[in-house]
Protein backbone atom coordinates (compact mmCIF):
# COMPACT_ATOMS: atom_id res chain seq x y z
CA UNK A 1 0.00 0.00 0.00
CA UNK A 2 2.52 2.53 1.23
CA UNK A 3 4.89 2.03 -1.65
CA UNK A 4 2.19 2.59 -4.23
CA UNK A 5 1.00 5.78 -2.65
CA UNK A 6 2.18 8.97 -4.20
CA UNK A 7 3.87 11.48 -1.97
CA UNK A 8 1.43 14.19 -2.59
CA UNK A 9 1.99 17.00 -0.22
CA UNK A 10 2.49 20.26 -2.02
CA UNK A 11 2.66 23.51 -0.11
CA UNK A 12 -0.52 25.42 -0.92
CA UNK A 13 -0.05 28.00 -3.58
CA UNK A 14 -0.87 31.22 -1.79
CA UNK A 15 -0.86 33.30 -4.91
CA UNK A 16 -4.02 31.67 -6.30
CA UNK A 17 -7.47 32.27 -4.87
CA UNK A 18 -8.02 30.33 -1.65
CA UNK A 19 -10.71 27.67 -1.80
CA UNK A 20 -12.21 28.93 1.44
CA UNK A 21 -11.96 32.57 2.39
CA UNK A 22 -13.53 33.95 5.56
CA UNK A 23 -13.35 37.71 5.70
CA UNK A 24 -14.02 39.42 9.03
CA UNK A 25 -16.73 36.91 9.79
CA UNK A 26 -18.84 37.49 12.91
CA UNK A 27 -21.71 35.34 14.09
CA UNK A 28 -24.23 36.49 16.66
CA UNK A 29 -27.40 34.98 18.07
CA UNK A 30 -30.24 36.63 19.93
CA UNK A 31 -30.83 34.82 23.19
CA UNK A 32 -34.40 34.28 24.41
CA UNK A 33 -33.68 36.97 27.03
CA UNK A 34 -33.10 39.45 24.21
CA UNK A 35 -29.36 39.74 24.77
CA UNK A 36 -27.01 39.30 21.87
CA UNK A 37 -24.57 36.44 22.15
CA UNK A 38 -21.47 36.72 19.99
CA UNK A 39 -20.12 33.31 19.07
CA UNK A 40 -17.47 34.30 16.55
CA UNK A 41 -15.78 37.67 16.33
CA UNK A 42 -13.90 38.87 13.30
CA UNK A 43 -12.61 35.60 11.89
CA UNK A 44 -10.18 35.85 8.99
CA UNK A 45 -9.16 32.54 7.53
CA UNK A 46 -7.92 31.41 4.14
CA UNK A 47 -7.62 27.76 3.26
CA UNK A 48 -5.88 26.73 0.06
CA UNK A 49 -6.61 24.02 -2.46
CA UNK A 50 -5.73 20.57 -1.20
CA UNK A 51 -4.86 21.84 2.25
CA UNK A 52 -5.66 19.75 5.32
CA UNK A 53 -6.51 22.25 8.01
CA UNK A 54 -7.58 21.42 11.56
CA UNK A 55 -9.34 23.78 13.92
CA UNK A 56 -8.81 23.17 17.62
CA UNK A 57 -10.13 25.04 20.61
CA UNK A 58 -11.82 24.54 23.95
CA UNK A 59 -15.36 23.18 23.87
CA UNK A 60 -18.02 25.74 23.12
CA UNK A 61 -15.62 28.09 21.36
CA UNK A 62 -17.49 28.06 18.08
CA UNK A 63 -15.51 25.51 16.09
CA UNK A 64 -18.68 23.85 14.89
CA UNK A 65 -20.29 27.21 14.16
CA UNK A 66 -17.34 28.00 11.89
CA UNK A 67 -17.94 24.74 10.08
CA UNK A 68 -21.68 25.42 9.78
CA UNK A 69 -20.88 28.79 8.23
CA UNK A 70 -18.53 27.22 5.67
CA UNK A 71 -21.12 24.55 4.86
CA UNK A 72 -23.72 27.27 4.42
CA UNK A 73 -26.14 25.87 7.02
CA UNK A 74 -26.09 29.30 8.62
CA UNK A 75 -25.18 32.74 7.33
CA UNK A 76 -22.67 35.03 9.07
CA UNK A 77 -24.09 38.09 10.84
CA UNK A 78 -21.27 40.24 9.51
CA UNK A 79 -18.40 39.73 7.11
CA UNK A 80 -18.44 37.40 4.13
CA UNK A 81 -17.45 33.94 3.05
CA UNK A 82 -16.05 33.22 -0.38
CA UNK A 83 -15.76 29.76 -1.82
CA UNK A 84 -13.34 29.60 -4.73
CA UNK A 85 -13.64 33.35 -5.11
CA UNK A 86 -17.44 33.57 -5.24
CA UNK A 87 -19.62 34.74 -2.38
CA UNK A 88 -21.31 31.89 -0.53
CA UNK A 89 -25.08 32.16 -0.39
CA UNK A 90 -27.11 29.28 0.98
CA UNK A 91 -25.76 25.74 0.99
CA UNK A 92 -22.16 25.34 -0.13
CA UNK A 93 -22.33 23.36 -3.39
CA UNK A 94 -18.70 22.24 -3.34
CA UNK A 95 -18.61 20.82 0.18
CA UNK A 96 -19.43 17.51 1.82
CA UNK A 97 -19.46 16.87 5.53
CA UNK A 98 -18.76 13.96 7.86
CA UNK A 99 -20.62 14.70 11.08
CA UNK A 100 -19.82 13.62 14.60
CA UNK A 101 -23.04 11.63 14.81
CA UNK A 102 -24.31 9.56 11.95
CA UNK A 103 -24.35 10.65 8.34
CA UNK A 104 -26.03 7.50 7.21
CA UNK A 105 -29.75 7.34 6.53
CA UNK A 106 -30.99 4.38 8.56
CA UNK A 107 -33.74 3.59 6.05
CA UNK A 108 -31.31 3.21 3.16
CA UNK A 109 -28.95 0.34 2.49
CA UNK A 110 -25.21 0.99 2.28
CA UNK A 111 -25.27 1.26 -1.50
CA UNK A 112 -28.30 3.56 -1.46
CA UNK A 113 -26.60 5.71 1.16
CA UNK A 114 -23.40 5.99 -0.84
CA UNK A 115 -25.08 6.60 -4.18
CA UNK A 116 -27.57 9.13 -2.74
CA UNK A 117 -25.63 12.25 -3.73
CA UNK A 118 -25.29 11.13 -7.34
CA UNK A 119 -28.96 10.12 -7.48
CA UNK A 120 -29.99 13.52 -6.10
CA UNK A 121 -28.10 15.09 -8.98
CA UNK A 122 -30.15 13.02 -11.40
CA UNK A 123 -27.71 10.25 -12.28
CA UNK A 124 -29.19 6.97 -13.52
CA UNK A 125 -29.47 4.32 -10.84
CA UNK A 126 -27.26 1.77 -12.62
CA UNK A 127 -24.45 4.30 -13.12
CA UNK A 128 -24.70 5.63 -9.58
CA UNK A 129 -24.60 2.09 -8.22
CA UNK A 130 -21.52 1.29 -10.25
CA UNK A 131 -19.64 4.26 -8.83
CA UNK A 132 -20.98 3.53 -5.37
CA UNK A 133 -19.65 -0.03 -5.57
CA UNK A 134 -16.22 1.33 -6.36
CA UNK A 135 -16.28 3.65 -3.36
CA UNK A 136 -17.69 1.01 -1.05
CA UNK A 137 -14.78 -1.19 -2.02
CA UNK A 138 -12.40 1.75 -1.59
CA UNK A 139 -13.43 2.21 2.05
CA UNK A 140 -13.24 -1.53 2.66
CA UNK A 141 -16.93 -2.40 2.87
CA UNK A 142 -17.22 -4.75 -0.09
CA UNK A 143 -19.91 -7.31 0.58
CA UNK A 144 -21.95 -4.96 2.78
CA UNK A 145 -23.71 -3.16 -0.09
CA UNK A 146 -27.18 -4.35 0.87
CA UNK A 147 -26.87 -4.02 4.63
CA UNK A 148 -28.83 -1.42 6.56
CA UNK A 149 -26.68 0.86 8.75
CA UNK A 150 -28.25 -0.58 11.91
CA UNK A 151 -26.37 -3.80 11.20
CA UNK A 152 -22.98 -2.08 10.92
CA UNK A 153 -20.55 -1.08 13.65
CA UNK A 154 -19.76 2.58 14.41
CA UNK A 155 -16.50 2.41 12.47
CA UNK A 156 -18.20 0.85 9.46
CA UNK A 157 -20.85 3.56 9.49
CA UNK A 158 -18.08 6.15 9.42
CA UNK A 159 -16.68 4.40 6.35
CA UNK A 160 -20.09 4.65 4.71
CA UNK A 161 -20.16 8.34 5.62
CA UNK A 162 -16.75 8.88 4.03
CA UNK A 163 -17.75 7.06 0.85
CA UNK A 164 -21.02 9.02 0.77
CA UNK A 165 -19.06 12.29 0.84
CA UNK A 166 -16.13 11.33 -1.36
CA UNK A 167 -18.23 9.91 -4.19
CA UNK A 168 -19.27 13.51 -4.83
CA UNK A 169 -15.59 14.42 -5.30
CA UNK A 170 -16.05 17.55 -3.21
CA UNK A 171 -13.54 20.36 -3.33
CA UNK A 172 -14.07 20.82 0.37
CA UNK A 173 -14.42 18.02 2.89
CA UNK A 174 -15.75 19.19 6.23
CA UNK A 175 -15.25 16.99 9.25
CA UNK A 176 -16.98 17.89 12.49
CA UNK A 177 -15.32 15.83 15.24
CA UNK A 178 -15.98 12.95 12.89
CA UNK A 179 -14.01 10.32 14.76
CA UNK A 180 -14.53 11.42 18.34
CA UNK A 181 -17.26 8.87 19.01
CA UNK A 182 -15.09 5.94 17.92
CA UNK A 183 -12.94 3.79 20.18
CA UNK A 184 -9.19 4.48 20.14
CA UNK A 185 -8.18 1.65 17.81
CA UNK A 186 -10.94 2.13 15.27
CA UNK A 187 -10.16 5.78 15.38
CA UNK A 188 -6.50 5.50 14.41
CA UNK A 189 -7.40 3.03 11.66
CA UNK A 190 -9.95 5.50 10.30
CA UNK A 191 -7.50 8.39 10.54
CA UNK A 192 -4.95 6.52 8.45
CA UNK A 193 -7.64 5.51 6.02
CA UNK A 194 -8.77 9.11 5.69
CA UNK A 195 -5.23 10.28 4.97
CA UNK A 196 -4.59 7.62 2.37
CA UNK A 197 -7.82 8.43 0.53
CA UNK A 198 -7.35 12.18 0.83
CA UNK A 199 -3.82 11.98 -0.56
CA UNK A 200 -5.30 10.71 -3.81
CA UNK A 201 -7.76 13.58 -4.08
CA UNK A 202 -7.27 17.30 -4.28
CA UNK A 203 -9.87 18.15 -1.66
CA UNK A 204 -9.29 20.75 1.00
CA UNK A 205 -10.18 19.41 4.42
CA UNK A 206 -11.45 21.38 7.38
CA UNK A 207 -11.18 19.11 10.37
CA UNK A 208 -12.78 20.19 13.64
CA UNK A 209 -11.49 18.44 16.74
CA UNK A 210 -10.77 19.02 20.39
CA UNK A 211 -7.93 16.53 20.24
CA UNK A 212 -4.67 18.35 19.53
CA UNK A 213 -2.72 15.16 18.81
CA UNK A 214 -5.22 14.11 16.20
CA UNK A 215 -5.08 17.59 14.67
CA UNK A 216 -1.28 17.61 14.37
CA UNK A 217 -1.04 14.04 13.17
CA UNK A 218 -3.46 14.64 10.30
CA UNK A 219 -2.98 18.22 9.22
CA UNK A 220 -0.86 20.56 7.15
CA UNK A 221 -2.03 23.38 9.36
CA UNK A 222 -3.55 23.76 12.82
CA UNK A 223 -5.70 26.76 13.78
CA UNK A 224 -6.14 27.48 17.49
CA UNK A 225 -9.26 29.34 18.52
CA UNK A 226 -9.75 31.36 21.69
CA UNK A 227 -12.33 30.45 24.30
CA UNK A 228 -15.79 31.86 23.58
CA UNK A 229 -17.82 33.99 23.66
CA UNK A 230 -16.62 36.15 20.78
CA UNK A 231 -14.06 33.52 19.83
CA UNK A 232 -11.45 34.40 17.30
CA UNK A 233 -8.29 32.90 15.85
CA UNK A 234 -5.39 32.82 18.26
CA UNK A 235 -2.73 30.84 16.47
CA UNK A 236 -2.02 29.42 13.04
CA UNK A 237 0.62 26.68 12.87
CA UNK A 238 2.11 25.00 9.86
CA UNK A 239 2.78 21.28 10.35
CA UNK A 240 5.66 20.30 8.12
CA UNK A 241 5.76 16.64 9.00
CA UNK A 242 6.60 14.31 6.16
CA UNK A 243 3.84 12.55 4.26
CA UNK A 244 2.63 9.89 3.93
CA UNK A 245 2.20 9.64 7.65
CA UNK A 246 1.25 6.83 9.96
CA UNK A 247 -1.01 8.44 12.50
CA UNK A 248 -0.28 5.92 15.22
CA UNK A 249 3.50 6.20 14.93
CA UNK A 250 3.96 9.86 14.17
CA UNK A 251 3.01 10.71 17.74
CA UNK A 252 6.48 9.60 18.87
CA UNK A 253 8.32 11.71 16.31
CA UNK A 254 10.46 14.37 18.09
CA UNK A 255 9.28 16.97 15.59
CA UNK A 256 5.68 16.08 16.46
CA UNK A 257 6.37 16.44 20.16
CA UNK A 258 7.96 19.84 19.66
CA UNK A 259 4.96 21.08 17.68
CA UNK A 260 2.60 19.61 20.21
CA UNK A 261 4.27 21.44 23.08
CA UNK A 262 4.35 24.70 21.16
CA UNK A 263 0.67 24.61 20.21
CA UNK A 264 -0.43 23.24 23.56
CA UNK A 265 1.15 26.27 25.29
CA UNK A 266 -1.17 28.38 23.21
CA UNK A 267 -4.21 26.20 23.64
CA UNK A 268 -3.82 25.60 27.38
CA UNK A 269 -4.61 29.19 28.35
CA UNK A 270 -7.81 29.05 26.32
CA UNK A 271 -8.83 25.74 27.84
CA UNK A 272 -8.22 27.22 31.30
CA UNK A 273 -10.29 30.31 30.48
CA UNK A 274 -13.09 28.16 29.15
CA UNK A 275 -12.90 25.92 32.21
CA UNK A 276 -13.02 28.92 34.55
CA UNK A 277 -16.16 30.22 32.81
CA UNK A 278 -17.95 26.97 33.42
CA UNK A 279 -17.18 26.75 37.12
Amino acid at each position, binding site marked *: MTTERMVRYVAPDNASTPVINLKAVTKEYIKPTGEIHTVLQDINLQIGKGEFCSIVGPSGCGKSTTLNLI*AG*FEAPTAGKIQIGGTLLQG*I*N*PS*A*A*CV*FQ*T*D*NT*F*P*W*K*TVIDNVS*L*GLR*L*HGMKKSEAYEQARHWIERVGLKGFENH*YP*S*RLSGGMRKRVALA*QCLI*MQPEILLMDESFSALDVHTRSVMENELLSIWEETSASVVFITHDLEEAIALSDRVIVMTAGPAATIKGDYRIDLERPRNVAEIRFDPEFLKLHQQIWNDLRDEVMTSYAQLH
Partner: protein
Amino acid sequence: MHSSTNVSQTQIEMTARKNALRSQAIRNRLRTLVLQILVFALIVGSWQLLSSRHWIDPFFFSSPVDIVKHIETWVVDGTSAGPLYEHFVVTFEETVISFIIGTILGVVMGYLLGRNKLLSDIFGPYITMLNALPRVVLAPIFIVWFGLGMPSKVALGVTLTFFIVFFNAFQGVREVDRNLVNNALLLGANQRQLARHVIIPSALTWILSSLHTSFGFALTGAVVGEFIGATKGLGFLISEAQGSFDTTGVFAGMVLLSITSLLADWLVTRLERRFVVWRSTAK
Protein backbone atom coordinates in the same frame (compact mmCIF):
# COMPACT_ATOMS: atom_id res chain seq x y z
CA MET B 1 -9.16 -37.37 7.43
CA HIS B 2 -8.73 -36.35 10.97
CA SER B 3 -9.62 -32.71 10.40
CA SER B 4 -12.71 -33.61 8.36
CA THR B 5 -14.13 -35.71 11.18
CA ASN B 6 -13.47 -32.79 13.48
CA VAL B 7 -15.42 -30.51 11.23
CA SER B 8 -18.38 -32.84 11.02
CA GLN B 9 -18.23 -33.26 14.78
CA THR B 10 -18.57 -29.53 15.35
CA GLN B 11 -21.26 -29.40 12.71
CA ILE B 12 -23.27 -32.04 14.48
CA GLU B 13 -22.87 -30.22 17.75
CA MET B 14 -23.99 -26.97 16.16
CA THR B 15 -27.09 -28.51 14.61
CA ALA B 16 -27.94 -30.10 17.93
CA ARG B 17 -27.62 -26.79 19.73
CA LYS B 18 -29.65 -25.02 17.08
CA ASN B 19 -32.41 -27.61 17.36
CA ALA B 20 -32.42 -27.31 21.14
CA LEU B 21 -32.79 -23.53 20.92
CA ARG B 22 -35.52 -23.83 18.34
CA SER B 23 -37.58 -26.31 20.35
CA GLN B 24 -37.14 -24.09 23.40
CA ALA B 25 -38.62 -21.18 21.45
CA ILE B 26 -41.53 -23.31 20.25
CA ARG B 27 -42.20 -24.51 23.79
CA ASN B 28 -42.28 -20.92 25.05
CA ARG B 29 -44.73 -19.90 22.38
CA LEU B 30 -46.92 -22.91 23.09
CA ARG B 31 -47.00 -22.13 26.81
CA THR B 32 -48.15 -18.56 26.16
CA LEU B 33 -50.85 -19.82 23.81
CA VAL B 34 -52.12 -22.39 26.33
CA LEU B 35 -52.27 -19.74 29.06
CA GLN B 36 -54.09 -17.33 26.76
CA ILE B 37 -56.69 -19.98 25.97
CA LEU B 38 -57.03 -20.81 29.65
CA VAL B 39 -57.76 -17.19 30.54
CA PHE B 40 -60.39 -17.04 27.81
CA ALA B 41 -62.00 -20.30 28.93
CA LEU B 42 -62.02 -19.17 32.53
CA ILE B 43 -63.75 -15.85 31.86
CA VAL B 44 -66.24 -17.13 29.30
CA GLY B 45 -66.88 -20.33 31.25
CA SER B 46 -67.64 -18.58 34.52
CA TRP B 47 -69.87 -16.09 32.70
CA GLN B 48 -71.76 -18.97 31.13
CA LEU B 49 -72.01 -20.79 34.46
CA LEU B 50 -73.18 -17.74 36.43
CA SER B 51 -75.75 -16.95 33.79
CA SER B 52 -77.16 -20.46 33.28
CA ARG B 53 -77.51 -20.96 37.07
CA HIS B 54 -79.27 -17.59 37.28
CA TRP B 55 -76.73 -16.25 39.77
CA ILE B 56 -76.68 -13.22 37.51
CA ASP B 57 -79.76 -12.18 35.59
CA PRO B 58 -79.48 -13.45 31.96
CA PHE B 59 -81.83 -10.66 30.89
CA PHE B 60 -79.24 -8.03 31.79
CA PHE B 61 -76.03 -10.00 31.34
CA SER B 62 -76.92 -12.51 28.63
CA SER B 63 -74.55 -15.48 28.22
CA PRO B 64 -71.79 -16.51 25.80
CA VAL B 65 -73.85 -19.31 24.28
CA ASP B 66 -76.79 -16.98 23.64
CA ILE B 67 -74.51 -14.42 22.07
CA VAL B 68 -73.00 -16.98 19.72
CA LYS B 69 -76.47 -18.21 18.83
CA HIS B 70 -77.59 -14.64 18.22
CA ILE B 71 -74.68 -14.00 15.88
CA GLU B 72 -75.46 -17.27 14.14
CA THR B 73 -79.06 -16.18 13.59
CA TRP B 74 -77.84 -12.84 12.25
CA VAL B 75 -75.46 -14.55 9.89
CA VAL B 76 -77.90 -17.21 8.70
CA ASP B 77 -81.29 -15.46 8.75
CA GLY B 78 -80.18 -11.85 8.67
CA THR B 79 -81.10 -9.12 11.12
CA SER B 80 -84.46 -7.40 11.47
CA ALA B 81 -83.02 -4.64 9.27
CA GLY B 82 -81.59 -6.70 6.45
CA PRO B 83 -78.69 -9.14 6.10
CA LEU B 84 -75.78 -8.83 8.54
CA TYR B 85 -73.05 -8.39 5.97
CA GLU B 86 -74.72 -5.20 4.73
CA HIS B 87 -74.37 -3.62 8.17
CA PHE B 88 -70.88 -4.92 8.50
CA VAL B 89 -69.89 -3.57 5.10
CA VAL B 90 -71.40 -0.16 5.86
CA THR B 91 -69.51 0.22 9.13
CA PHE B 92 -66.30 -1.07 7.62
CA GLU B 93 -66.61 1.27 4.67
CA GLU B 94 -67.27 4.28 6.90
CA THR B 95 -64.28 3.34 9.03
CA VAL B 96 -61.88 2.83 6.16
CA ILE B 97 -62.94 5.98 4.31
CA SER B 98 -62.63 8.18 7.38
CA PHE B 99 -59.35 6.51 8.27
CA ILE B 100 -57.90 7.21 4.83
CA ILE B 101 -59.14 10.81 4.65
CA GLY B 102 -58.09 11.53 8.24
CA THR B 103 -54.66 10.01 7.73
CA ILE B 104 -53.95 11.86 4.50
CA LEU B 105 -55.12 15.19 5.95
CA GLY B 106 -53.17 14.54 9.13
CA VAL B 107 -49.95 13.67 7.33
CA VAL B 108 -50.19 16.60 4.92
CA MET B 109 -51.02 19.13 7.64
CA GLY B 110 -48.46 17.63 10.00
CA TYR B 111 -45.81 17.88 7.32
CA LEU B 112 -46.67 21.46 6.40
CA LEU B 113 -46.81 22.72 9.96
CA GLY B 114 -43.79 20.70 10.98
CA ARG B 115 -41.69 22.18 8.20
CA ASN B 116 -42.99 25.73 8.36
CA LYS B 117 -42.54 27.64 11.56
CA LEU B 118 -44.81 30.50 10.52
CA LEU B 119 -47.70 28.16 9.76
CA SER B 120 -47.25 26.26 13.00
CA ASP B 121 -47.10 29.51 14.96
CA ILE B 122 -50.32 30.71 13.35
CA PHE B 123 -52.34 27.50 13.45
CA GLY B 124 -50.85 25.85 16.53
CA PRO B 125 -53.19 27.38 19.13
CA TYR B 126 -56.32 26.74 17.02
CA ILE B 127 -55.43 23.11 16.50
CA THR B 128 -54.83 22.62 20.20
CA MET B 129 -58.19 24.26 20.89
CA LEU B 130 -60.06 22.05 18.41
CA ASN B 131 -58.32 18.99 19.78
CA ALA B 132 -59.44 19.86 23.31
CA LEU B 133 -63.06 19.76 22.16
CA PRO B 134 -64.65 16.33 22.83
CA ARG B 135 -65.26 15.36 19.22
CA VAL B 136 -68.32 13.25 19.99
CA VAL B 137 -70.38 16.39 20.55
CA LEU B 138 -69.91 17.11 16.85
CA ALA B 139 -71.94 14.03 15.89
CA PRO B 140 -75.39 15.72 16.10
CA ILE B 141 -74.24 18.71 14.06
CA PHE B 142 -72.71 16.44 11.41
CA ILE B 143 -75.97 14.54 11.16
CA VAL B 144 -77.84 17.81 10.69
CA TRP B 145 -75.35 18.87 8.02
CA PHE B 146 -74.75 15.62 6.17
CA GLY B 147 -77.87 13.55 6.88
CA LEU B 148 -78.34 10.06 8.23
CA GLY B 149 -76.17 8.37 5.60
CA MET B 150 -72.49 7.67 5.34
CA PRO B 151 -71.05 11.22 5.03
CA SER B 152 -71.94 12.23 8.59
CA LYS B 153 -70.17 9.16 10.02
CA VAL B 154 -67.15 9.73 7.84
CA ALA B 155 -66.99 13.35 8.95
CA LEU B 156 -67.00 12.30 12.60
CA GLY B 157 -64.39 9.61 12.00
CA VAL B 158 -62.17 12.08 10.16
CA THR B 159 -62.25 14.58 13.03
CA LEU B 160 -61.23 11.79 15.40
CA THR B 161 -58.43 10.29 13.30
CA PHE B 162 -57.05 13.53 11.92
CA PHE B 163 -55.68 14.86 15.20
CA ILE B 164 -53.90 11.70 16.19
CA VAL B 165 -52.15 11.34 12.85
CA PHE B 166 -51.56 15.08 12.66
CA PHE B 167 -49.79 15.34 16.03
CA ASN B 168 -47.65 12.30 15.28
CA ALA B 169 -46.72 13.48 11.80
CA PHE B 170 -45.96 16.95 13.16
CA GLN B 171 -43.75 15.56 15.89
CA GLY B 172 -42.12 13.11 13.49
CA VAL B 173 -41.25 15.89 11.06
CA ARG B 174 -39.93 18.06 13.88
CA GLU B 175 -37.75 15.31 15.34
CA VAL B 176 -35.88 14.60 12.12
CA ASP B 177 -32.17 14.55 12.86
CA ARG B 178 -30.78 17.99 12.00
CA ASN B 179 -27.54 16.43 10.76
CA LEU B 180 -29.34 14.16 8.33
CA VAL B 181 -31.21 17.13 6.88
CA ASN B 182 -27.97 19.09 6.57
CA ASN B 183 -26.21 16.11 5.07
CA ALA B 184 -28.87 15.67 2.41
CA LEU B 185 -28.76 19.39 1.60
CA LEU B 186 -24.98 19.29 1.18
CA LEU B 187 -25.31 16.22 -1.03
CA GLY B 188 -27.52 18.36 -3.23
CA ALA B 189 -31.11 17.65 -2.24
CA ASN B 190 -33.81 20.17 -3.15
CA GLN B 191 -36.91 20.58 -0.97
CA ARG B 192 -38.85 17.85 -2.73
CA GLN B 193 -35.97 15.37 -2.54
CA LEU B 194 -35.40 16.30 1.08
CA ALA B 195 -38.99 15.38 1.86
CA ARG B 196 -38.81 12.13 -0.06
CA HIS B 197 -35.43 10.86 1.11
CA VAL B 198 -35.18 12.22 4.63
CA ILE B 199 -38.21 13.75 6.26
CA ILE B 200 -40.96 11.35 5.24
CA PRO B 201 -39.01 8.13 5.94
CA SER B 202 -37.93 9.54 9.27
CA ALA B 203 -41.43 10.63 10.24
CA LEU B 204 -42.90 7.36 8.99
CA THR B 205 -42.15 5.45 12.19
CA TRP B 206 -44.13 8.05 14.13
CA ILE B 207 -46.97 8.09 11.63
CA LEU B 208 -47.25 4.32 11.41
CA SER B 209 -47.37 3.89 15.15
CA SER B 210 -50.25 6.36 15.26
CA LEU B 211 -52.21 4.34 12.72
CA HIS B 212 -53.06 1.65 15.28
CA THR B 213 -54.76 4.17 17.51
CA SER B 214 -56.29 6.16 14.70
CA PHE B 215 -57.96 3.14 13.10
CA GLY B 216 -59.61 2.43 16.43
CA PHE B 217 -60.82 6.01 16.51
CA ALA B 218 -62.16 5.79 12.96
CA LEU B 219 -64.23 2.83 14.07
CA THR B 220 -65.40 4.73 17.14
CA GLY B 221 -66.42 7.63 14.91
CA ALA B 222 -68.46 5.36 12.66
CA VAL B 223 -70.17 3.53 15.51
CA VAL B 224 -70.96 6.63 17.58
CA GLY B 225 -72.34 8.29 14.46
CA GLU B 226 -74.55 5.26 13.87
CA PHE B 227 -75.80 5.35 17.47
CA ILE B 228 -77.00 8.88 17.11
CA GLY B 229 -78.73 8.54 13.78
CA ALA B 230 -78.43 5.94 11.04
CA THR B 231 -80.35 3.35 9.10
CA LYS B 232 -77.50 0.85 8.71
CA GLY B 233 -74.33 -0.34 10.37
CA LEU B 234 -73.15 -2.27 13.39
CA GLY B 235 -73.66 0.76 15.64
CA PHE B 236 -77.22 0.99 14.38
CA LEU B 237 -77.77 -2.71 15.18
CA ILE B 238 -76.46 -2.21 18.71
CA SER B 239 -78.61 0.85 19.29
CA GLU B 240 -81.66 -1.02 17.91
CA ALA B 241 -81.02 -3.96 20.22
CA GLN B 242 -80.61 -1.56 23.13
CA GLY B 243 -83.90 0.12 22.21
CA SER B 244 -85.72 -3.20 22.53
CA PHE B 245 -83.87 -4.26 25.73
CA ASP B 246 -82.13 -7.03 23.79
CA THR B 247 -78.91 -7.38 25.83
CA THR B 248 -77.77 -10.37 23.79
CA GLY B 249 -78.07 -8.26 20.65
CA VAL B 250 -75.93 -5.52 22.17
CA PHE B 251 -73.26 -8.04 23.15
CA ALA B 252 -73.40 -9.68 19.73
CA GLY B 253 -72.76 -6.29 18.12
CA MET B 254 -69.86 -5.71 20.48
CA VAL B 255 -68.28 -9.04 19.59
CA LEU B 256 -68.55 -8.26 15.89
CA LEU B 257 -66.97 -4.86 16.49
CA SER B 258 -64.02 -6.30 18.36
CA ILE B 259 -63.45 -8.84 15.61
CA THR B 260 -63.42 -5.97 13.12
CA SER B 261 -60.89 -3.98 15.09
CA LEU B 262 -58.66 -7.02 15.66
CA LEU B 263 -58.66 -7.56 11.93
CA ALA B 264 -57.80 -3.93 11.31
CA ASP B 265 -54.99 -4.00 13.85
CA TRP B 266 -53.49 -7.03 12.18
CA LEU B 267 -53.62 -5.25 8.82
CA VAL B 268 -51.95 -2.13 10.20
CA THR B 269 -49.19 -4.22 11.79
CA ARG B 270 -48.54 -5.87 8.45
CA LEU B 271 -48.36 -2.45 6.82
CA GLU B 272 -45.94 -1.22 9.47
CA ARG B 273 -43.60 -4.18 8.95
CA ARG B 274 -43.66 -3.61 5.24
CA PHE B 275 -42.58 0.04 5.61
CA VAL B 276 -39.92 -0.13 8.27
CA VAL B 277 -37.90 -3.08 7.04
CA TRP B 278 -34.72 -1.19 7.83
CA ARG B 279 -35.52 -1.21 11.51
CA SER B 280 -36.58 -4.81 11.86
CA THR B 281 -33.37 -6.08 10.26
CA ALA B 282 -31.46 -4.60 13.19
CA LYS B 283 -31.88 -7.86 15.10
